[in-house]
């Protein structure tokens, strides 16, 4: 089977062309030995089916980061290259085109965003470009599908360039200039009102207000979509499921198996939140409580990405994040982390170096409470007054910044500066956005749900054999002496490693003062992520990285807990 590879700069609408060529049956996975995601699909050529690979966007074949390295390697797998070129920015895109053609691989050039080029007063002599490059050139509009049929039709004409020969870097720049000069004419164009509005979103003050509004809208949308999915999709599904588990419960009868699979019944009924069985709570929590919000978060993120807003947000956020050793894209793990720390941990891949990813992952596990933790904070402290809730969040914010400032100093490694292109605003391509969201959700289901499930199994087992009580007895003196908490809180904190939401249920009956609860809840958030996040972090950071991160978490939790005790309770 032949392999067709899509190559192009970032932000040229490559994934739109990809989804037009391949339809919906697409797989996204890590490129072997890297953390770079690559999408693969299939299409039909006149001589049979062919595999299609969407290489990561790159500006050249001399890579400057892991994603570009993968792009260069994927080129080696190609029988045919479709070089997607941004028609509104021909000159810059041609460098990669020349580098690709110099390799002597059969190629076709897709002159994408053709409609936008027209609007901007840019005219390109397609036949002239075809003659100069020595390969077919087809104008396309990925968004509407215009030109895709012709592009597919001309894949059969793909051939090594007859005109482009290997050249030095300086010659290549000169050739880019010469070709652009010959085929492109630009009508002079004044700045429009839309341009001015677009610029407002990147200036410091106006941009900050727009960013706050966008973030607020994003969270509202997440909540609305998440709650909608729960009420209209997932809970009705579980209503259909209930009679089946009840039947299973009857068949099993009381005993250890019932305890593990179904859990406790409340007045003869299953309580999906509290029963704690693998087939009850073990399915309900990941699918009906977490997954709906993950879908919502990923959808909103994909829209922010595809409209072109994300690079602007990263530019604004950079002022803050680069002091903590990351750069502007550090805001993405934070945003996703508020939903669930698992996608947050996966999103640390947007940062380039090990040091940056370590800092981003550690800070997120420390100080970004996930949906379950936020619910816990409000549930436990809300009844005592909003100021206690604010205390927890303020402490977490201070921890994020303080730990970031310190880690940036002590962690060895490089922190590359922000360097990104700001694409023009575009209407998102609904097909591409939907595909991307689905890919990410599927990735989450594969990577996180098994561990959420295992976590519940593990806590059930440890709890029933009394292991947690043993551990609690060991740690109780620390709790009492250092944190001013009752011994019983130790069990809750240990259970919290596996199930934060369950830990809450154990804190409430201890009859602690609101100040003690602030300490316990803050500790619970800081000291360790849940087991699912732990496993993902272990994979992303490696065993040594995870050990270091865990050290930071435990130290930070003890220091913060001790400090809070002194401030809130005294000695």
């Amino acid at each position, binding site marked *: 089977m032949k392999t067709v590879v899509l190559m192009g700069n970032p932000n040229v609408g490559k994934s739109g062309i990809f989804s037009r060529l391949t339809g919906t049956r697409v797989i996204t996975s890590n490129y072997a030995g890297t953390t770079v995601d690559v999408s693969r699909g299939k299409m039909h050529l006149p001589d049979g089916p062919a595999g299609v690979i969407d290489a990561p966007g790159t*500006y*050249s074949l*001399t890579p*400057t980061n892991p994603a570009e390295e993968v792009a260069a390697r994927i080129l080696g797998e190609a029988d045919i290259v479709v070089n997607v070129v941004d028609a*509104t*920015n021909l*000159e*810059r895109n041609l*460098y*990669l085109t020349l580098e690709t053609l110099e390799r002597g691989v059969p190629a076709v050039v897709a002159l994408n965003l053709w409609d936008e080029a027209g609007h*901007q007063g840019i005219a390109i002599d397609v036949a002239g470009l075809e003659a100069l490059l020595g390969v077919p050139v087809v104008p396309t509009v990925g968004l509407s599908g215009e030109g895709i049929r012709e592009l597919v039709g001309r894949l059969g004409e793909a051939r090594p360039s007859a005109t482009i020969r290997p050249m030095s*870097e300086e010659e290549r*720049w000169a050739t880019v200039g010469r070709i652009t000069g010959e085929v492109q004419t630009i009508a002079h164009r004044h700045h429009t009102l839309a341009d001015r509005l677009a*610029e407002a979103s*990147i*200036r*410091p003050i106006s941009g900050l207000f727009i960013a706050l509004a966008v973030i607020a809208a994003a969270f509202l949308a997440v909540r609305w979509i998440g709650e909608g999915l729960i009420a209209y999709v997932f809970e009705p599904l579980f209503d259909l499921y209930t009679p089946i588990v009840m039947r299973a419960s009857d068949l099993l009868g009381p005993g250890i198996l019932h305890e593990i699979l179904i859990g406790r019944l409340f007045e003869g009924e299953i309580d999906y939140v509290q029963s704690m069985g693998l087939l009850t709570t073990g399915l309900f929590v990941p699918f009906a409580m977490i997954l709906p919000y993950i879908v919502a978060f990923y959808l909103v993120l994909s829209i922010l990405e595809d409209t072109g807003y994300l*690079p602007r947000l*990263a*530019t*604004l956020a*950079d*002022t803050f994040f*680069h*002091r903590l050793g990351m*750069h*502007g894209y550090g805001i993405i793990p934070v945003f996703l982390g508020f939903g669930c720390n698992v996608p947050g941990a996966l999103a640390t891949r947007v940062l380039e170096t090990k040091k940056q990813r370590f800092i981003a992952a550690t800070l997120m596990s420390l100080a970004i409470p996930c949906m379950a933790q936020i619910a816990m904070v409000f549930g436990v402290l809300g009844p005592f007054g909003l100021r206690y809730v604010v205390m927890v969040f303020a402490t977490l914010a201070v921890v994020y910044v303080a730990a970031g400032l310190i880690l940036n100093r002590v962690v060895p490694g490089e922190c590359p*500066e*922000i*360097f*990104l*292109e*700001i694409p023009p605003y575009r209407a998102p391509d609904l097909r591409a956005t939907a595909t991307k969201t689905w890919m990410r959700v599927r990735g989450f289901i594969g990577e996180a749900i098994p561990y959420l499930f295992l976590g519940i199994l593990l806590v059930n087992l440890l709890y029933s054999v009394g292991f947690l009580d043993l551990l609690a007895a060991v740690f109780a003196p620390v709790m009492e002496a250092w944190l001013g908490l009752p011994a019983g809180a130790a069990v809750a904190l240990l259970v919290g490693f596996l199930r934060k939401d369950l830990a809450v249920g154990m804190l409430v009956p201890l009859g602690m003062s609101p100040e003690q609860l602030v300490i316990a809840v803050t500790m619970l958030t800081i000291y360790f992520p849940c087991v699912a996040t732990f496993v993902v972090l272990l994979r992303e950071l490696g065993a040594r990285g995870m050990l270091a991160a865990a050290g930071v978490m435990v130290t930070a939790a003890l220091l913060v807990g001790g400090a809070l005790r002194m401030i809130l309770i005294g000695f």
Partner: protein
Amino acid sequence: MEKTLLELEPGTQGTIARFIGNPGFVRKLRTIGIREGKTLTVVTRHPLGGPVVIEVDGREVTLGRGMAGRVVVDVAE
């Protein structure tokens, strides 16, 4: 007169003269469209050590201050 990009006030226009740095750094800038001889406009410079945003050929690019300090621009007096 030659100045580094970092020294330019928002709104200033100039011609990119040269880059201070290794070949890898130079290639990174050139391939994103920041090339010698191009006209550049400073769109904004974020305060408190934030990044600089410039426009070249109608495209905006964000770059950190360290990088901006290594781009030499020729500006009219």
